[in-house]
């Protein structure tokens, strides 16, 4: 038995080293090499730039507090949309803390748009805390607030939202959704365009 262990030791040690080199270094390096040449934008995080400055990632949500912007979902990542500390709330459905948080958020939202039902995604935290999307209902829900904060007509803003609704692939994969960062960028552009038009 002892001799068997000694005989098994060399392949165990050598194969660990060889596989570490092949799978731990060569494989990720090769993928990185090809990815950086073939898909440089995606490989580096789908970064969105404005006048040369990185303002975020197309795939990562960010915090919006101003009434002039559409808001994303509540976030449990760090102090909110911390893209170096993704996290969900992990609160159970029976949690008092969840109940209180949702009650407060629902009350706040209902005050901004009386009469409309509050979309559930706007009062629940996402799994990652970085969800870049909201549902179309959650976007339309915010139209009147954003329009009045910007002095734009609700129709203009509603049309902008409608243009940003993405549909499920083949009608089956995924849900209808709106990328909040994209929508807000388009909103800024529309506001600037309107100001220049004057």
């Amino acid at each position, binding site marked *: 038995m002892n001799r*068997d262990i000694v005989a098994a030791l060399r392949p165990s040690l050598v*194969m660990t080293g060889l596989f570490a080199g092949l799978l731990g270094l060569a*494989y990720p390096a090769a993928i990185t090499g090809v990815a950086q040449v073939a898909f440089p934008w995606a490989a*580096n995080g789908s970064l969105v730039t404005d006048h040369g400055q990185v303002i975020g990632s197309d*795939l990562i949500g*960010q915090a919006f507090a101003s009434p002039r912007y559409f808001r994303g979902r509540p976030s449990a990542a760090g102090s909110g949309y911390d893209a170096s500390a993704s996290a969900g709330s992990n609160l*159970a459905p029976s949690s008092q803390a969840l109940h209180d948080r949702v009650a407060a958020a629902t009350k706040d939202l209902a005050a901004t748009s009386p009469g409309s*039902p509050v979309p559930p995604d706007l009062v629940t935290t996402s799994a990652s805390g970085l*969800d870049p999307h909201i549902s179309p209902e959650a976007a339309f829900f915010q139209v009147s607030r954003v329009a009045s904060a910007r002095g734009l007509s609700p129709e203009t803003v509603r049309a902008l939202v409608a243009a940003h609704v993405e549909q499920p692939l083949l009608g*089956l994969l995924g849900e209808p959704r709106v990328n909040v960062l994209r929508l807000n960028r388009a909103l800024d552009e529309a506001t600037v365009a309107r100001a220049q038009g004057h």
Partner: protein
Amino acid sequence: MTSATLLSGWGLILVFTALVALIAKPFGLWLFAVYEGRRTPLHVVLGPVERGFYRLAGINPEQEQDWRQYALHLMLFQVVTVIFTYAVLRLQGVLPMNPRGLAGLSPDGAMNTAIAFVTNTNWQWYAGEVVLSNLSQMVGLTIHNFLSAATGIAVAFALFRGFARAQTRNLGNFWADLTRVTLYVLLPACVVYALFLVASGVPQTFASLVDAHTLEGAHQAIVVGPVASQEAIKMLGTNGGGFYNANSAHPFENPTALVDFVQMLSIFALGAGLTYTFGKAVGNTRQGWAILWAMLALFVAGASIVWWREAAGNPMLHQLGAMGANMEGKEVRFGAAASALFATVTTAASCGAVNAMHDSFTALGGMIPLFNMQLGEIVIGGVGSGIYGFLLFAVLAVFLAGLMVGRTPEYVGKKIEAREVKLAVLAIVILPLCILGLTAVAVVLPAGLAGPLAKGPHGFSEILYAFTSATANNGSAFAGLTAGTPFYNGLLGVAMWLGRFLVIVPVLAIASSLAARKQTPAGPGSFPTTGGLWIGLLIATILIVGGLTFLPSLALGPVADHLTGAAGLLY
């Protein structure tokens, strides 16, 4: 929830299941070629690598091993790789590719993580983007995503040989199985898969951090890294250890609904394929299909329940005016349907990747993932471990059938005798022993009770889920549990190790005693192991033997959670 939405969720489940059945044969044939050691087109490129590895390590791939040698080489390799990754994680602070200057992990944390990745569990007590450097992710962890998957498939191959061969002690060569599966299946598949992921938005860079100035002028630090190369094998090898804390819910790991769907398929691809490989190996593919149908029946039932509960939503939130499906802990791009499906897939298989937070699922929606793991992850299951775990139940089922009709039990041409049944029961019993035993320890000790985030029955569920996930080598969590403590790192480490190797060793022993036996051609008195009766018997055996043991624990956790919730109690 409208009935149209409900129906589209069922539609998604059925389309997915049909596709799994469709890809089983091509993946099975691919694996069968490797099982037989046949030359494939990939040998042109990778053949020299394979031979070079053998030469440097002093391995003769033609040299057959009996079960003791096979198990010894396998176990020693696991121990060496645990030590290797432990060292990488401890020394992280002084190793290169660490631009953020992250410190090494604590001894208990590093040991837990090393065991987690070697055992194909990928339990993560830490947040990947917070504590791990790119080097640790790649060299410390990604290699195990390949090697633990290949080890599982190697054990399955050895067991297949036990059924297929006669009057021999030889089960193959562990190093040949390990190397061939890695080089001719996992690596080439992952190269293609990883590039698809990058093209879809998953980052792949050696950079670590991007500083962004958001639209509102705030600072946002965005962690990037070699994500795609890890993501591909994380799914295909049913590992589940994410680059980021949020795992496949993170938009960088799982950016679109299409990627999400492909990720779910890739969790099942090799496990489903191995049912076909088994059929080929024993010379009757209908044997393999019977296994797959039994698995898929259990799968569809589970997925349907999760979707039904998640679509119904949380009545507590409905009362507040937030109607609709349960969206706490779910991503908008996936919605409740794809989240329910993913949760079922990842726990039916031994993956443990998540695209939604299971802890925030409804009580009964979260019970199915728990139950899937308690069955031993044999519904498709982990790569290799799913099929060998399932075959333990098949051995048990023919034994029970034999008792009922008074015949000598046979399965795929081999008589099943007392030794195999005893070993199968030993391998099956380790699951309840570890899960229930260690949960019981944790709920009476202060160090254990300090863990749960939730109070009430859901707090118990969080602890139960942790030991279930660790013992079954899944790796998903009711992540409210604070598990990064010496108590949980230690106990969960023990659970992962026992749950992996106290199954693998008996499986190899079964393979050995089957291989030594003569082939018994099926006669008119043999119990047929292909038709609907057999599939029903299999499912019944799995549910009664595998499931019933856990019923009391489920009653204390999710069922109590559901009932108190229905009564309007909050904790």
